[in-house]
């Protein structure tokens, strides 16, 4: 196949250096990719490398001791292809500077670099001679996010699948789209059946059997003093903007509940405030809350502090306990997704008197904020109370492309509709048999309930089909076991769309694949660029980045409210948004991957800017700011990452160091040993020591130092960021010392020093990103035979300064993406 040959040629060309200019030499052996004909220089070098191994490695890694299962004296360094798996491990350790371990003699930088370069060249050459694309799973189940997107793109309906399907397990790489861990259990299948029913009914617009209530809660710590969303009007404050799906045309009702103290008194009722309910921007109802206490009724004392049996007058009590009983409105709505906006009208006055600190804990729980702002605690949207019809929704328009009259018309329309949808759902051309299977269900329901209900049952069957739920890749029949073959165009279309969009291919991509045109490299590149520019590529940010940068965890971290009283839900939301916008800008502007770590800008709104100490930013809207001081910049300065790598009440240099090692340098530390001895709490003289000094003791113990010496300093450099990402110059015990030194000798100070270190030699960073992205794209963990691919992609991307699109295109063109090994 042409494509396979091209891949081979490109790989060979890469080795010989045609397509891959080497980065500026830093002691790397010149002309590393020599053809093997000129013997004397090669064997002299080989002898030199053998000498290096014998001198620095074989003392521990020999046949007799077999440290870590490695016997390097028995391996032949002249014939690297014989032990590629082991040599790849050696290269990883050498690149990380993890071996030889601290305290043992190490070769100088040039010698080590020479050995690494030699090994890598030999490994790449061996890979080119015997390409191994690896084997992806034959039945790769869609994970929950992919299922949700597939339903969205197939039926034009946004259903929150997190309530319908369980979350998926992540593998050790931290990604939840890895085929191996995507198992199927009876409980899951049960949920698929149930989800298919619900989704197909929603898509077709069948009225629910009963009215239901959807409750949207607003967390207590989301401060409602300012405008909270772009979907709420200017001049509003607080409340919530909900994207709600109204299943059918009809009457619905909205009920609001206000925020209360723990003794159930509603907050902020001292002054009248307007509370508006809007649907798609149109005002449905304006309520007035507050200011309605009976004038002579005595209130409970302001220093009430929840102590029974103190009460106010009964009339006052009734008012303050029941003022939100009537915040209910019934209104007609049209089917589809609509934005329901609940907000207060903002009053522009400031409280007089001494500014109070923000309250947390018990004071917050009991404070009625009589003269302050009322707040919304929940919005319940119920209905449909009456059903006027299925309405005209995007999903109905998508499903019902024809509207038959009766009889033969109906069958033909049903056939066409189901064939069209099944083609997208199964990601391949459909046969008559496929459509017949679905038609059986259509006929059965149509008999009792009509055309639309028939289509609904057929859709329900379609959504449970294994070819919808699984991505199926089968070996061609006539190929020997263990051989490599190019994946089919249809498989490639799915690989592309699930990689870049976490969803099914659209019609354009599918058409190209069916016509057999997707094999062409130029066509693929055009499609990739189109797909990266499409809004659906936000899935890459949500899923790849959300897991790689752990931004998904921002939703569930719980910083200790006593230690961090300023942490609120506004900040939590801002953390998430900053990281999303930042990475989206790297992808959207096609910037260098290195900018992920070394950018001079970020995205903030007023809340986040205040947290970071950036002045002059007002309002809830996120905007890009250039960072004047270089404390922050890149993901290492993002509140999201800094918070998820901390404990609730303190930072952890170990967790942060581990994250950097795993996700930026690609050298994750091994598991801790089983019997970790206790660290003494106090120093030698019995004095209390700082957090940092305690951890320093890791390095005095050689058992611990092996892992902690390369790990802790990376975390120390970030100690100026507290456990919620704010800047500090001292912790509870001592001024912050953010200097660090690695076993390789590198020294740095503070986050800017760490950043400089990481980008001085960007290759490890780019390689790590490439590795993670490749594993995510393939849906399987990487094996030793994939590392030559990673090296090649990184080398080629250097020509464009490691732009994001180069990495992505490199992955798409690569051997494991384009080809597959047959089973044994």
């Amino acid at each position, binding site marked *: 196949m042409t494509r396979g040959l091209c891949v081979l040629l490109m790989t060979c060309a890469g080795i010989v250096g045609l397509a891959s200019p080497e980065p500026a030499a830093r002691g790397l052996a010149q002309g590393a990719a020599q053809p093997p004909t000129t013997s004397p220089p090669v064997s002299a070098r080989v002898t030199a490398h053998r000498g290096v191994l014998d001198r620095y490695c074989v003392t521990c890694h020999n046949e007799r001791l077999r440290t870590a299962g490695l016997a390097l004296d028995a391996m032949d360094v002249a014939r690297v292809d014989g032990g590629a798996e082991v040599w790849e491990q050696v290269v990883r350790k050498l690149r990380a500077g993890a071996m030889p371990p601290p305290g043992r003699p190490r070769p100088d930088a040039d010698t080590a670099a020479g050995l690494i370069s030699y090994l890598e060249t030999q490994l790449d050459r061996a890979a080119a001679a015997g390409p191994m694309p690896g084997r992806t799973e034959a039945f790769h189940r869609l994970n929950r996010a992919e299922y949700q997107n597939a339903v969205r793109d197939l039926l034009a309906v946004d259903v929150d699948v997190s309530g319908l399907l369980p979350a998926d397990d992540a593998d050790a790489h931290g990604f939840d789209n890895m085929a191996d861990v995507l198992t199927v259990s009876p409980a899951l299948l049960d949920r698929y059946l149930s989800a298919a029913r619900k989704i197909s009914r929603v898509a077709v617009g069948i009225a629910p059997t009963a009215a239901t209530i959807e409750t949207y809660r607003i967390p207590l710590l989301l401060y409602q003093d300012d405008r909270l969303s772009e979907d709420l009007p200017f001049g509003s404050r607080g409340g919530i903007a909900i994207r709600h799906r109204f299943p059918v045309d009809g009457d619905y009702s909205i009920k609001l509940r206000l925020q209360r103290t723990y003794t159930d008194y509603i907050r902020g009722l001292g002054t009248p405030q307007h509370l508006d309910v809007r649907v798609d921007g149109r005002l449905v109802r304006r309520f007035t809350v507050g200011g309605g206490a009976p004038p002579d009724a005595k209130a409970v004392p302001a220093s009430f502090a929840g102590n029974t049996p103190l009460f106010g007058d009964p009339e006052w009590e009734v008012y303050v306990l029941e003022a939100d009983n009537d915040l209910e409105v019934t209104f007609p709505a049209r089917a589809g997704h609509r934005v329901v906006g609940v907000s207060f009208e903002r009053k522009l006055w400031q409280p007089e008197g001494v500014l109070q600190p923000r309250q947390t804990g018990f004071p917050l729980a009991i404070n009625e904020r009589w003269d302050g702002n009322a707040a919304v605690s929940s919005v319940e949207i119920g209905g449909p109370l009456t059903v006027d019809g299925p309405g005209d929704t995007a999903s109905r328009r998508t499903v019902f492309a024809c509207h038959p009259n009766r009889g033969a018309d109906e069958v033909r329309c049903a056939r066409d509709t189901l064939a069209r949808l099944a083609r997208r759902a199964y990601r391949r051309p459909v046969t008559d048999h496929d459509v017949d299977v679905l038609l059986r269900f259509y006929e059965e329901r149509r008999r009792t309930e009509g055309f639309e209900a028939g289509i609904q049952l057929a859709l329900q069957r379609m959504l449970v089909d294994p070819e919808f739920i699984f991505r199926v890749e089968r070996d061609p029949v006539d190929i020997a076991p263990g051989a490599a073959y190019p994946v089919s165009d249809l498989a490639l279309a799915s690989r592309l769309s699930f990689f870049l969009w976490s969803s099914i291919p659209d019609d354009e991509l599918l058409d190209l694949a069916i016509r057999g045109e997707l094999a062409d490299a130029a066509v693929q590149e055009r499609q990739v660029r189109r797909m990266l520019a499409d809004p659906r590529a936000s899935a890459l940010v949500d899923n790849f980045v*959300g897991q790689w940068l752990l931004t998904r965890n921002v939703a569930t971290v719980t910083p200790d409210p006593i230690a961090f009283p300023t942490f609120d839900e506004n900040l939590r939301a801002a953390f998430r948004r900053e990281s999303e916008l930042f990475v989206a800008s790297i992808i959207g502007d096609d910037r260098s991957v290195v900018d992920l770590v070394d950018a001079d800008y970020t995205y903030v709104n007023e809340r986040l800017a205040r947290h970071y100490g950036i002045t002059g930013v007002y309002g809830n809207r996120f905007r890009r700011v250039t960072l004047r001081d270089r404390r922050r910049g890149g993901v290492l300065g993002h509140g999201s990452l800094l918070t998820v790598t901390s404990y609730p009440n303190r930072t952890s240099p170990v967790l942060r160091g581990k994250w950097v090692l795993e996700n930026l340098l690609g050298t994750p530390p091994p598991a801790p040993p089983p019997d970790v001895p206790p660290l003494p709490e106090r120093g030698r003289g019995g004095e209390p020591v700082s957090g940092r000094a305690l951890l320093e003791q890791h390095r005095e113990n050689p058992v611990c130092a092996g892992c902690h010496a390369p790990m802790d300093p990376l975390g120390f450099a970030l100690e100026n960021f507290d456990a919620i990402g704010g800047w500090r110059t001292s912790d509870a015990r001592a001024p912050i010392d953010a200097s660090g030194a690695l076993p390789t000798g590198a020294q740095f100070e503070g986050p800017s020093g760490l950043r400089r270190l990481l980008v001085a030699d960007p290759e490890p960073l780019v390689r790590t990103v490439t590795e993670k992205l490749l594993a995510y794209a393939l849906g399987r963990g990487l094996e030793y035979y994939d590392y030559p691919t990673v090296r090649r992609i990184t080398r080629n991307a250097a020509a464009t300064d490691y732009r994001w699109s180069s990495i992505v295109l490199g992955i798409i063109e690569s051997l494991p993406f384009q080809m597959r090994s047959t089973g044994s």
Partner: protein
Amino acid sequence: MIITKKALPRRTVLRGIGATLALPLLDGMVPALSAIRQTPARGMRRFGVLYVPNGMAMQHWTPTGDGTAFDLSPILQPMAPFRDRTLVLTGLNPGPGGGAHAGASTKFLTGVAGRRTDGAEIESGPSIDQLLARELGRYTQLSSLELALDGRDFAGTCDAGFSCAYTNTISWRTDTTPLPMENDPRVVFERLFGDSDSTDPAVRRARLAEDRSILDSVTEKVAELERGIGPDDRRKVDQYLDAVRDVERRIQRAEEQSTRDLPLLQQPAGVPSTFEAHMRLMFDLQLLAYQTDLTRVVSFMVGREISGRTYNEIGIPDAHHPLSHHLDDPAKIWTMSKINTFHVSLFAEFVDKMRSTEDGDGSLLDHSLLLYGAGMSNSNAHAPVNLPVMLVGGAAGGLDGGRHLTYPEDTPMANLLLAIMDKLGVPLEQIGDSTGTLDVLSV
């Protein structure tokens, strides 16, 4: 809101109900449940597992004294009213391997250390709750129920070198199929009572028939797909088919029992906001499942291994996992033991409800066997020896409580797993590294 027989008029639904979370008290529901009377005369046995993560403060767990004359330790104090139904076991070993935390949760019910893998080819052994479910589940709609309090919506890795699949569950249906543990009470409710939004038998029957016909069609499709699939690729397909068969069986059972009246129930709206409320609600659902005989096997993970949950409600703002690395500091050990005691106290509430629930000629507690424990003992050292475990319940006359039993060193935990199988009437020769059935000095 779910009402038997017919749906409420739409307007009524909205009045003042909102989305409440608590189930009503369960006394008074039993009269409607005629199925309970149909049990075999021997006594219908239930099995429950409650797993707590991050080990235990052993200094405050292990009772002093042996046999019947033992003192309840501080952590076990809440079990005082049920002393006569409690067997505390000391000295059982799960065996080495499988990772510090991944091994703890994986070996607890399987006796087999999980294969060290990032994700490819996860493998352990079948767990006893699933082995029991294969037998006891023949009589119930659901063969088993797996509950948890931690969701799986988080990114990142779990135990180094071991896929998160190992720490996310304690139940393994087969050696390659870990079962998801559900933490959303609403979903558990739907699993028990279906998603028909109605307990009207006719509606439910129609729903079941629909699902059955869809599954039949799907099975045909899988048979077509299976042609030309090599042995390497069979695993997922087999999992899928196994799942289909299980759901079909459940549907069949549900159809047979569909004339039964179900009690008036409110469906929980979602995950409650506090740990206590969440745990109590899950216990209520477990109790309901036993009472309605929808299942006889329930496993419940209070927390995932490496859980970093904080327990501010009892005054502990530190994350559980780092706190469990107490460095042998007595003050920290005592603090951690308060978390352990908190868990036991919530469990004791559940045991109390089991005791007050009628079940044929006794109480639910009389006819159940509950296993409570952790997969490691000394959390600081991730010690896979001397697990903190206790058996609670009467096991339909098979268990004599009120004792603290200490076993010799090297007694495998797997021997206890065999003893449990034996007590529940499903004897097994061997599991994991077992060397024989443990003698729990009971009937």
